[in-house]
């Protein structure tokens, strides 16, 4: 039985949560502006709670099992984060409170900025961007404005490797940049000869994900960055895959100019079924004045008797404000808690265990599935989800069959440069037993693909719903439900 919608569960006259009667003298409402109907559901609290609880039971989640989604870093979300982010001292602070009443918030944000600088090797950090994609937009605006301020108006070309996430070209295109895809070489690195040809006076910059979405650390990263710099361009680092580098190497040291973090990947803030994320951006010294307005700063360093005072400063050449207020503060509290519990050695341990887990799985699977780039990988690796002699079996079938084994499928059909890609990122929080169980499932599925391919084609079999008709959804476009009495009205 499908779960009815809230409008189907609604019953006229039923009350949910009510509020106290007004304690002030009644005044008239502004008649000409009043609505006549308020089409909201009418449900008792118990039925609302049961409805949403039942919905929750139709979801897969990290708390239920393994989530080997490549480039998504679906690590365990520590429960303490949820407690700290909801502390009344944080949750009940208004963003426009005078700064002397929110020194705790500002201290936390300032300290998190300092830690992210230290971890990444950059000179400054903004915590404002709401998500990785908004971090990219922020970073690309910084690069745009940097060239504008130098009178370099014709620098509009942004190079983006063909293995990049779709947000990279979209973020650059949003501000009118010309996108030029950069091919990868046979080892999965940036193709240096192609890069050389594109490095001229029109170059604005390069967006580089390193390790890239193949899970490979670019073996010529320093050379790549030097070539872009020599041509007058800047290098943007997509920090989606930073988990592999924590305590191992700092992108700022490698020469990157700008980089975003995904706190919801690397620093354990939950994905929430699609968000909220958080995408702080780091810059090198020369770009500090371009950061979004405002930046959390130490306004007065204090003294022995007097603690420092934290507040806001306004960078002189700022790209402007990128969102209301100061960022996803609740996510910042979670990331702060996480870093606080790890310290220097703990962060390095994260990267080491993430890379160990990925290499372990890659080695277990590469005799069953084709591994197009056979090098030691970083935090993730990409397999081909098909066999030449089984043309009817696709990566999608393998992905769906994994659900029958109670696993979330890997990222599939991405990166685009691998045919029928299965992109696997185990993260550091999974045990050897979990990795083995998943590898066993994938190996079993490879056997099923030969012996009983219908098991793959018809999969999944025991999920809340089975394969869905996406064409029908796009054709019918039912995007909203209405109160039943509205629908029953004569038209």
């Amino acid at each position, binding site marked *: 039985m499908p779960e009815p919608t809230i409008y189907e569960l609604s019953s006229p006259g039923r009350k949910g*949560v009510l509020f106290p009667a007004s304690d002030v003298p009644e005044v008239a409402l502004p008649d000409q502006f009043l609505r006549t109907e308020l089409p909201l559901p009418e449900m008792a609290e118990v039925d609302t709670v049961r409805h949403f609880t039942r919905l929750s039971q139709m979801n897969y989640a990290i708390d239920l099992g393994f989530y080997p989604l490549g480039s998504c870093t679906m690590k365990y979300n520590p429960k303490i984060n949820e407690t*700290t982010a909801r502390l*009344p*001292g944080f949750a009940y602070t208004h963003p426009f409170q005078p700064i002397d009443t929110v020194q705790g918030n500002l201290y936390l944000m300032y300290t998190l900025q300092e830690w992210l600088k230290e971890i990444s090797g950059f000179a400054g950090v903004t915590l404002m961007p709401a998500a990785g994609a908004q971090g990219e937009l922020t970073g690309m605006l910084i690069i745009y404005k940097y060239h504008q301020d130098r009178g370099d108006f014709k620098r509009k070309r942004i190079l983006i490797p063909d293995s990049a996430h*779709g947000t990279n070209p979209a*973020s650059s295109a949003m501000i009118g940049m010309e996108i030029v895809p950069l091919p990868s070489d046979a080892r999965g690195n940036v193709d240096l000869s192609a890069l050389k040809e594109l490095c001229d006076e029109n170059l604005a910059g390069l967006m580089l994900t390193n390790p890239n979405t193949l899970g490979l650390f670019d073996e010529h990263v320093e050379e790549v960055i030097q070539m872009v710099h020599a041509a007058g361009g800047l290098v943007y680092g997509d920090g989606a895959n930073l988990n592999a580098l924590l305590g191992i190497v700092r992108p700022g040291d490698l020469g990157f100019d700008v980089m975003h973090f995904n706190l919801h990947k690397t620093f354990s803030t939950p*994905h*929430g079924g699609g968000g*909220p994320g958080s995408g702080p951006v780091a810059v090198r010294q020369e770009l500090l004045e371009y950061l979004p307005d405002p930046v959390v700063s130490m306004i007065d360093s204090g003294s022995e008797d007097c603690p420092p005072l934290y507040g806001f400063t306004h960078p002189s050449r700022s790209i402007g404000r990128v969102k209301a207020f100061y960022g996803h503060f609740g996510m910042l509290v979670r990331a702060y808690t996480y870093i606080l519990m790890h310290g220097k050695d703990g962060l390095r341990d994260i990267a080491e265990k993430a890379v160990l887990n990925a290499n372990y799985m890659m080695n277990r699977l590469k005799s069953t599935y084709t591994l197009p780039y056979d090098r030691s990988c970083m935090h993730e690796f990409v397999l081909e989800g098909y066999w030449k002699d089984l043309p009817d079996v696709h990566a999608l079938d393998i992905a769906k069959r994994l659900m029958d084994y109670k696993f979330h499928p890997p990222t599939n059909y991405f990166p685009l440069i691998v045919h029928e890609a299965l992109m696997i990122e185990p993260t550091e929080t999974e045990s050897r037993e979990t990795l083995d169980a998943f590898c066993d499932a994938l190996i079993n599925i490879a056997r099923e693909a030969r012996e009983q391919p219908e098991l793959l084609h018809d999969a999944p079999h025991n999920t809340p719903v089975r394969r869905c008709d996406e064409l029908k959804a796009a054709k019918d476009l039912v995007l909203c439900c209405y109160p039943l009495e509205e629908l029953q009205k004569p038209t």
Partner: protein
Amino acid sequence: MFTPHSDADVAVMLKSIGVENVGELFKEIPARFRYPDLNLPPALTEMEAADDLDSIAASNGTTHDMLSFLGAGAYDHYIPAAVDMILRRGEFYTAYTPYQPEISQGTLQAIFEYQSLISNLTGMDVTNASHYDGATAAAEAAILSWHHFKGKRKKVLLSRAVNPQYRQVIRTYLQATEGLRIEGDDQETGLDADLKRLIAQIDNNTALVVVQYPDFFGRIIDYKPLIEAAHAEGALVAVAVNPTALGLLTPPGDLGADIVVGEGQPLGIPLSYGGPYLGLFSVKEPLLRKLSGRLVGETTDVEGKLAYVLTLTAREQHIRREKASSNICSNQGLMTLASAVYLTLLGKQGFRQVANLCYQKAHYAAHVLASLPGFDQVFSETPFFHEFVLRPSQPLDEVLSHLREHDILGGYDLGQDYPELQGCLLMAVTEKMRKTDIDFTREVLMEVENA
């Protein structure tokens, strides 16, 4: 620490990979930069970290231990306990984006219900799965209008009474869009409720007009003349809403709005120092395919069973890459859930009651405070919802600091954005404010005048 590996596990895994130690897996990293000595504090256990965070949080003053009239885009409403109980379910908050519908029906149906609630509340045809916040939703509306007219209409008009931060974010997002002008919010066009000078600027080169409802000062303005004027010139109109007000007010869809954006924070999301919040974004049917961001639609599975999926994904960056009109990838997933649970829990009666309480209490506050000698209500001739502007004859700094001595946060200093409102205070009142709180504030303000 959240890695489960025992030393024995590590040994077995290294042997299986065929390396001596973990370090061998990192040999491609340039040696001179490998293993930086990070200057970070030593790791704390959970117990110690909880203690640290407790003391940081405790050092803040909060809207619980002070009486707050702060609003200006973020509002202190009561959130029923059941909202957070649902949000804390690991099945919801530790789930990924619902790209695999077979095992994501919970998230998908919840978003579908969110889309329905917001469409019904705003009187619009289609609501997406949300943007980051009200400000970025407003910026996306401007981008939508630019693409809708294929860059041929070069002007976006903003009412000066739109939240200053929204206007800043629109300018940030569009600063590199060549040929586009953003106008209408200058001091000369002003803040008049009849909008005559703004309407006069609408022409056939105008892509979009953005107004706010209620506006930044809490005023309820009749936007019908503006919307008619814009449509007569073929321009689009975006209305930025406070959703709580829509518990009482005519929905902007009925007024003719083409796009509705808004800050969804008042719908069951804590203040949390400014985020994460929720960007509402709804359009009329003709703009459906121009809409950026995720959308959930109804369909069936292979057995004919009702199911929900992400739909029209071909608009989005992961398919269209540089040809997508927006780079947005995530939505405020968990925040859409919070607002869906909130609106369902309160329902038709509870939500209308909250809106009415906000209206009544704000009017009581405006009445008793503005009737004090030395205090005037600015814009008093225009209807308002739950925010109003108070102009003290004394310097605002002195008024605010006097209020602070009595643990009252007086409101938002409008002089920082509006030179013409120097010394004026924007005050917000929600259902949480008691009559006794307002009366107490009146007594404290009386002392200012007498001081």
